[in-house]
């Protein structure tokens, strides 16, 4: 694999010389995310394989081109999982793409996000330098936390080579309850349940029914489900997998699909758009033909941010525009990692 690293470094050196941007590609399953970007492809899927996995140390280290399914299979064998519930878009989804986009699944409000589980990253910055930040241990405050900074940076700060992630035990038992409710009642119920001591691991409202998943000790889960008093959902696994992997019907729309992350108690002006609410009220998926400006404005009024998840126009900004102060910090950081601007430039924001 040292050879592959050398090839990447050569490609980088070449790109710098030619002033030709690189487009980093893992499994290409998330090519639809972010702004349109051009450049020569830097292929990462051949840089793959689990490097080390120690169940008792609660970590796994893998090369970025390793498929998510390989990682999941390895962990499942030992009764462990990635607790941030990463979307498995298709068989070629890689762990590098998971970390670069920072997208977590339905479990996220209860167990944490991708970056919460990132322990360390080995990467190449825009100058072709091989760097390692963080490590495999749970607590590490030596130096700035650059591995978490790179999580969700869409490859604009470095080419991720290897990633160490914290893993967690798979819950002993899970069950899902559901109930037909109005949106208002469903939201109130999600809030109410999450402040109690009920072992919720996912809660969503699909426009008609509220779905609550409980995870943990079997006895506790069963008693809690009785306390909630909703119907038990059969085939729950399929339901949550579809939601996590963007296969539910809300994602198959001719309209733009927007993803809004908002504070739990905020009110989102959904209007007539069809909508699915995940994360206990903290994540809205909208099918809408409203303008980007209108959606960004709505998200910002609600105290959150929007992202054009699937849509036609990817020339414009697809992520919530940043305040001037934040944007200038972003530009400064981009310059600190990639002064020649060759790593996925413009993928996140036009000027970053």
């Amino acid at each position, binding site marked *: 694999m040292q050879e592959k690293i050398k090839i990447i470094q050569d490609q980088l050196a070449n790109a710098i010389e030619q002033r030709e941007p690189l487009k980093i590609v893992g499994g290409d399953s998330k090519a639809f995310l972010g702004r349109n970007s051009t450049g020569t492809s830097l292929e990462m899927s051949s840089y793959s394989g689990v490097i080390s996995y120690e169940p008792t140390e609660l970590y796994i280290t893998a090369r970025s081109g390793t498929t998510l399914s390989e990682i999941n299979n390895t962990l499942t064998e030992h009764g462990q999982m990635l607790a941030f519930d990463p979307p498995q878009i298709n068989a070629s989804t890689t762990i590098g793409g998971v970390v670069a986009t920072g997208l977590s699944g339905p479990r996220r409000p209860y167990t944490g996000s991708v970056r919460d589980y990132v322990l360390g990253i080995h990467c190449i910055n825009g100058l072709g330098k091989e760097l390692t930040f963080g490590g495999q241990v749970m*607590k590490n405050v030596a130096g*700035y936390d650059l591995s978490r*900074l790179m999580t969700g940076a869409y490859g604009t700060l470095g080419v991720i080579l290897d990633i160490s992630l914290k893993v967690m035990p798979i819950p002993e038992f899970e069950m899902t309850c559901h109930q037909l409710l109005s949106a208002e009642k469903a939201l109130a119920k999600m809030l109410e349940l999450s402040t109690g*001591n009920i072992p919720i691991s996912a809660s969503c409202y699909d426009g008609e029914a509220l779905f609550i998943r409980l995870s943990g000790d079997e006895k506790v889960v069963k008693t809690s489900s009785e306390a909630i008093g909703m119907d038990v959902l059969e085939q729950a696994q399929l339901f949550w997998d579809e939601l996590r992997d963007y296969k539910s019907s809300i994602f198959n729309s001719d309209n733009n699909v927007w993803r809004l992350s908002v504070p739990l108690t905020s009110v989102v002006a959904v209007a007539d758009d069809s909508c699915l609410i995940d994360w206990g009220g903290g994540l809205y998926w909208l099918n809408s033909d409203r303008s980007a400006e209108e959606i960004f404005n709505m998200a910002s009024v609600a*105290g959150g941010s929007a992202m054009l998840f699937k849509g036609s126009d990817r020339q414009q900004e697809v*992520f919530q525009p940043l305040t001037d102060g934040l944007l200038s910090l972003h530009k400064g950081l981009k310059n600190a990692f990639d002064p020649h601007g060759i790593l996925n430039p413009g993928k996140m924001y036009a000027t970053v």
Partner: protein
Amino acid sequence: MNFSKLTEILPAGAVLLSEESRRVYECDALSAHRVMPGCVVLPDTVEQVQAILSYCHSHDIPVVARGAGTGLSGGAMPHEEGVLLILAKFNKIIEIDPEQRTARVQPGVRNLAISDAVKSHGLYYAPDPSSQIACTIGGNVAENSGGVHCLKYGLTVHNIMQLKLVTIEGELITVGSHAFDSAGYDLLALLTGSEGMLAVIVEVTVKLVPKPPFSRVLLAAFDDVEKAGNAVAGVIAEGIIPAGLEMMDKGGVRAVEDFVHAGYPTDAEAILLCELDGTQDEVETGLNAVEQLLTRFGATEVRVAQNDAESDLFWAGRKAAFPAAGRVAPDYYCMDGTIPRKHIAQVLSGINDLSKKYKLDVINVFHAGDGNLHPLILYDIAIPGELKRTEAFGSDILKLCIEMGGTITGEHGVGIEKINEMCIQFSDDELEQFHAVKAAFDKKGLLNPGKAVPTLNRCAEFGAMHVHAGKDKFPELERY
């Protein structure tokens, strides 16, 4: 340096210029390192902080932020020609939102004050450094502080949602939000643990968690440190994530027992404290499983607390560990490396060897569940040369942690204390990357100069003296 202009920005009494008033702030809890600050300021509004920073920026004056000064790595050690910016007056809880389970607080609010303020809602703020009655949330964010419950509930970085910060230019910027995900780079993570090097934090939104309905502590004794170390890995392998999993060696047990009489078995080579929380059923099932498991791993005795009072007593010993160390020796020096759990026994035995080599006693009381060691080196500053020997001993412990695939600091930060060891843990290219990140926030290098990240020159000098000498000390051990 002309500091008197600051009195035009700040009200009378908020600028300390006299020598006696400045002397109080010469050091943080790493008291062996002292510097008289050029000037001390105690603002109480964000606008004042903006004005101070913008003034310092235009006049090239260094600025060191300080919370409660409980830091153990010299992060808040002042600069002799600079301003020491104390945030202690920012001690208000601005807003509590029990529905959303967040609290928006000023940076000078003490860690425990947050949990106290939200108690009536059945909530608390999870990260609980032992210093929690004194340390500030701003300091916690700057150090990414942890505590005994971090194994299950995470560090500061996992428990905050939004920060307001003032840049060295005096600009007020919000990072993160009250939503789960925010747009752009994860500056919230970058700022957490940045040791006052990138910006001054003027507001923090923390997450709150519901108080678990039930919790219990169990104490296990071992006649062998290695068995105790293996038992720690065994608990985790079983799929159990305790709320806390702490270990104490014989020296620790004895020091503590003499002090608080928690009933610890003083003939044990090591003890483990394991806390489980959740519903009563869940905890009781879990305790059973842990008890059997620890016995299987060779525990000579397992005691399950029968009630809350006994749980508290078990914890009282652990919590009194630092003051107990202070009673058995005139001074102690607390180290903070993290290692993979499986190497706990080997590293403790390595530390013992070093203890003999340096002729200094050491006791170990630490967060075993996350492999975060806190060797306390006992010494007497009044004996000439003993502090130097202590620091050399400490540095060797950190090198050992790096060799074992760990890190030089798990929660106390680099500050000034571990600046040399940074040269061992990171390559020049990595250090350059850190400097580039710093420059993106603070081009002139005015915020906390000389801390956290060493210059390459410093490493070159240090390397000539140390690095290679210490390298092959444990050739039999695996490397990463």
